[in-house]
C-alpha cells in the first residue's frame, strides 16, 4: 500500500469505522499462567450479573483465534510459559494484553521462586496492568475502561 492510498479519505473513514466496531465489542481470552484462582474468579465475577462487563461489549471467547485481548493472571510458571506464548501467538492482530493481579505484574508473593518468571511482561508486551491481590471487580472494570481507550486510539 502506498502512502497516498493509506491517506485516502475513504480508507481513513473505513479504518475509523473498524476502530469504532472493535471498541464496542472487545472479545477476551483468559489464560491462567499459574495463578491461585483468586484473580480468575474475580474476573469471572465481573462477567456475572452484579458487575456485568458484557454491557460494554467485553465477552470471554473460548479460543485465542477469536480474541482481541489476552487477559492473563498468575506469575507464569515454568510449565505454563510455553502455553502463554502459544496463546498469545495464536491471536490475530491487533492484540492487547491485560495483566490482572500482583502476581502477573511482578510475581507477587511468589517472587524469587524456582519455578516462576515473576510476571508476564518479560514474556509478552502488556497494555494494561491491574494491581491487587486479587483486584476488586471494580478495579478490573476500571482496567478494562483504560483498555477500551487504548483500543479506540489504536491506529
Amino acid at each position, binding site marked *: 500500500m502506498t502512502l497516498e492510498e493509506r491517506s485516502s479519505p475513504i480508507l481513513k473513514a473505513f479504518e475509523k469505522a473498524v476502530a469504532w466496531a472493535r471498541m464496542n465489542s472487545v472479545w477476551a*481470552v*483468559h*489464560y*491462567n*499462567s*499459574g*495463578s*491461585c*484462582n*483468586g*484473580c*480468575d*474468579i*474475580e*474476573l*469471572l*465475577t465481573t462477567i*456475572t*450479573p*452484579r458487575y456485568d462487563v458484557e454491557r460494554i461489549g467485553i465477552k*470471554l*471467547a*473460548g*479460543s*485465542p483465534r477469536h480474541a482481541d485481548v489476552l487477559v492473563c493472571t*498468575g*506469575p507464569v*510458571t*515454568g*510449565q*505454563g510459559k510455553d*502455553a502463554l506464548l*502459544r*496463546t498469545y501467538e495464536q491471536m490475530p492482530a491487533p492484540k492487547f494484553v491485560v495483566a490482572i493481579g500482583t502476581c502477573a505484574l511482578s510475581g*507477587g*508473593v*511468589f517472587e*524469587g*521462586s*524456582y*519455578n*516462576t518468571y515473576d510476571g508476564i511482561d518479560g514474556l509478552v508486551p502488556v497494555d494494561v496492568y491491574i494491581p491487587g*491481590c*486479587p483486584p*476488586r471487580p471494580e478495579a478490573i472494570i476500571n482496567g478494562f475502561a483504560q483498555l477500551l481507550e487504548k483500543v479506540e486510539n489504536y491506529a
Partner: protein
Amino acid sequence: MAEISSDNGRKFTIPIGPQHPALKEPGHFEFVVDGEVIQEASVKLGYAHRGIEKIVEDRNYTQAMYILERVCGICSHVHASALAMGAEQLAGVEAPPRARAIRTLVYELERIHSHLLWLGVAAHEAGFEALFMYSWRDRETIMDILEEISGSRVHYSVNAIGGVRIDISAESAQNILKAVDFLEERSKHYLNVVSSDRVFLQRSRGIGVMSPEEGNRWGVVGPVARASGIKRDVRVDAPYAAYDIFPVTMITASEGDLEARFTVRVRELLESTRLVREVVKNLPEGELTTKVKRKIPPAETVVRIEAPRGELMYYMKSNGTDQPERIHGRTPTIPNMASVLHLTIGHQLADAPMILAGIDPCFSCNDRAVVLKSQSHSDLWSWDQLRQYGIDRYHGRT
C-alpha cells in the same frame, strides 16, 4: 485440533488445554475417542506449580501463613488456618474458644461461597447459563459478608498464629443472619432445580456413576465420596476448631452419579447455613488470640481439615527457629482426579467436562510437583546431579 493415531484409523486423540474454554485453570487432558465415545483418558498437571513448599521454608510462620493462603483463591481460609493450627500444635498452645468458633464460622461461609461458585461453573459446563448467572449473583451476598468481617473478598487473612485477627461485631452478626436466611431460600430453590429440571437431569442422571468400592479403591474424598455413599468427613470423624461444640450432620447420597454430586453439595449449602446461624447465635465470649512464642521447638505434626472439596492434610515440621523446617500439603483434588480418568471412559466426549467439573477440581491446589527433563539426564537423577542442577540454576538466575 485432532490427530489420527497410527495404530487405528478410526481412533482420534483429542488434546484439551492448558488454555481451554471449559475451566479457568490450566490442565492438559488427552482423550482417545472412537467416534464420540471416550476410550482412554490421560491428564498432565503441573501448570500451576509455583514451588510454594520451598518458598515457605525461607519464611517465618506468620509470613508462611500469607503464602499458604495464596495456594488457592477459592478455599484460602482452610490453607491459612491449617498452618495456624499446625503452628499452635507444634508450640503446644490452643487457640481460645472464641477464635476457634470464628474460624469455624469462616470455614462454613467459605464452603457456601465455594459450593455456589462450583454450582455455577458446573451448570456452565452443562450449558445451563441461567443457573450459572443466578448462582454467581447469589454468591455476591456471601462475598459481601466475607468482605465486611475480614476486609477482603478473596484472601480473608482471618487467622493469626494463636487465634484470629478479626472479631464479629453485633452488627455484622445481624448481617450474617440476614444473608444466610436469603441463601437458605435460594439453596432450596437450587435443590429443586438440580433434582427436577428435566433437561439438566439428562446431563447429570446416571452419568459418571461411581460405586463405593471404586471410590474406596481410588481414595476419593469430600463431596465426591459422600455422593457415592462413603461416609468420610473430617468435621465428623476428627472434629477440629469448634466442630466439637457445633456438630455437623454428614450429608450422603447413594447413587454415586453426577446428580448425586449436585444434590450432596446443594444440601451441604443448607447444612452450612444452619451451622453459620448456630455459630453466630452461640459465639463464645473471650479473647481472640493466645500468645505463641516466635521460636517453635522441634516437633512434627499433621493437620487435617475438611476443605470444601474434601480432606486437606498438612504435614509440618519445626526445627526450633521461627521458620518451619518442612511443610507439605496434600489437597483433595489429587485423589479425586484419579476418579475422573476412570469415570470418563465409556462416556460421550461431551460428558467429559461435566464429569471433570463434578469433582470440583482445583488445579492451583494440586500442582505439588514439576517434572524436570533434559537431554543429558535420564528420568532418574542422583543426589549429586540434583544438587549440581540446583547450583547451576541458582547461578543462572543471578
